């Protein structure tokens, strides 16, 4: 959705500054897992607004439906049951793109302008520039982008960049009946989360906390968790997500270094030729007459 063109913080595979004359307020979606009732209104609203429909699946003994994120389902309620905290808990987490401040997908993407990070924090895929290589999938620490079987382009949550650009809240926020989902400036959302955390602690959730992982520079989708010390019990939410070292090396130091070394190797050849010169053979007249 190429709506906001004056406020681009970063653009994939681009080495010069992107249009960023306009600075927007950093936004965030706050998902209060402790208030979520698992109604899936957000999932339905996401499909509605983006006009996508998931295939009708099969029940495998869980409320989780579809079973995973897909190119059509950009958000998904993940259901987990655990007795780890002394009592049976039904943990429901709305999964989807976290809109990282340091997005691994954008770092890995080789196609200029296929992934855009706006100064409001939204990380958006521009599918018309996507080449279908799947590098973003290797870059993402949250296992979010999905390659479509239909067109070999990658899709994920846009944080409703099209709605936000015209001053609306994301569709999922609008649909949430318990205000488990709230949206606003990142600063306001942190403040709101802190109030919730105080409340949760008073109610006995000693380890209640905010999930805004600093390993990816913080995120623009954050969680309030009752057990922030154990995010992995919420269907494998990573405890300390970072861009994989493999991807960091590949797209960090190695990319410019290897390109420069290859250029210099060719240049070294050229200068060898014009300084030392070619290795020539003097032909022997006798070879022409000699019997082979």
């Amino acid at each position: 959705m190429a709506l906001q063109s004056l406020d681009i913080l970063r653009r994939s595979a681009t080495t010069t500054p992107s249009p960023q004359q306009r600075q927007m307020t950093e936004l965030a979606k706050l998902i209060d897992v402790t208030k979520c009732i698992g109604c899936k209104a957000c999932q339905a609203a996401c499909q509605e607004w983006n006009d996508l429909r998931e295939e009708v699946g099969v029940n495998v003994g869980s409320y989780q439906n579809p079973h995973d994120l897909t190119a059509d389902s950009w958000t998904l309620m993940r259901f987990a049951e655990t007795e780890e905290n002394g009592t049976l808990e039904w943990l429901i987490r709305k999964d989807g793109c976290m809109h990282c401040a340091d997005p691994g997908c954008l770092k890995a993407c080789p196609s200029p302008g296929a992934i855009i990070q706006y100064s409001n924090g939204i990380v958006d895929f521009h599918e018309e520039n996507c080449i279908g290589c799947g590098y973003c999938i290797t870059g993402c620490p949250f296992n979010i982008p999905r390659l479509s079987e239909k067109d070999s382009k990658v899709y994920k949550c846009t944080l409703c960049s099209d709605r936000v650009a015209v001053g609306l809240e994301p569709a999922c926020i609008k649909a949430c009946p318990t205000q488990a989902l709230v949206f606003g400036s990142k600063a306001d959302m942190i403040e709101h989360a802190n109030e919730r955390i105080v409340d949760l602690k008073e109610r006995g959730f000693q380890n209640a906390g905010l999930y805004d992982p600093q390993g990816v520079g913080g995120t623009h989708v954050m969680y309030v968790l009752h057990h922030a010390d154990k995010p992995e019990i919420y269907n494998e939410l990573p405890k300390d997500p970072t861009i994989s070292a493999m991807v960091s090396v590949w797209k960090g130091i190695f990319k410019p270094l290897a390109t420069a070394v290859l250029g210099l190797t060719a240049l070294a050849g050229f200068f060898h030729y014009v300084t030392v010169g070619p290795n020539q053979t003097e032909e022997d007249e006798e070879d022409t007459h000699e019997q082979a």
Partner: protein
Amino acid sequence: MNRPDLIDRYGPADRFNHWITALTFILLALSGLALFHPSLFWFTQLFGGPTWTRILHPYVGLVMFISFALLALRFWHHNLLTKNDIVWLSRIADVVRNREDRLPEVDRYNAGQKLLFWTMIATIPTLLATGIVIWQPWFAPHFPIGIVRLAVLLHALCAFVMIAGIIVHIYAAIWVQGTVGAMVRGTVSKAWARKHHPGWYKRVMQGDER
């Protein structure tokens, strides 16, 4: 052989095979570099656009692998390293200064050529294996993400080593004059063989090797 001053070095099948490998390599290097560094992204225009570049690259890679495998089967036994090769490598300063008189006798291939051969033996199969792991949409979704991440890095590393090696290979063929003809028309001059590959020259003249 019509001219007595020339001797055969590569037959038509070897030349055909070498140039299939070379042409596919050029296509792979350009398309691979296009997706490696943004400054080279414009190479994608040579392949019909960025998405076509992504689609074509792995298929071209399969052709190069097969073609190189045949080449390797034909030439590996000429590329076994000997004690002379170690001496040759230790005198690399003489090599780059064109002082061949100070070097030990070279047979069919010098140590530089042999090292290039073994570099290709190490990198090309790795490029194939890692390339399959990251091949979208056919194979990549079936591998664990950790393996795919390792594969993208290894693929880039091996490609870098291979491209650097081939730049040296191409330059050496231009630098040592009279070499390109060996792979284009199949022949070299006797004087060239005496100067650069005396061991091989002797065996050819004795009729031990064609």
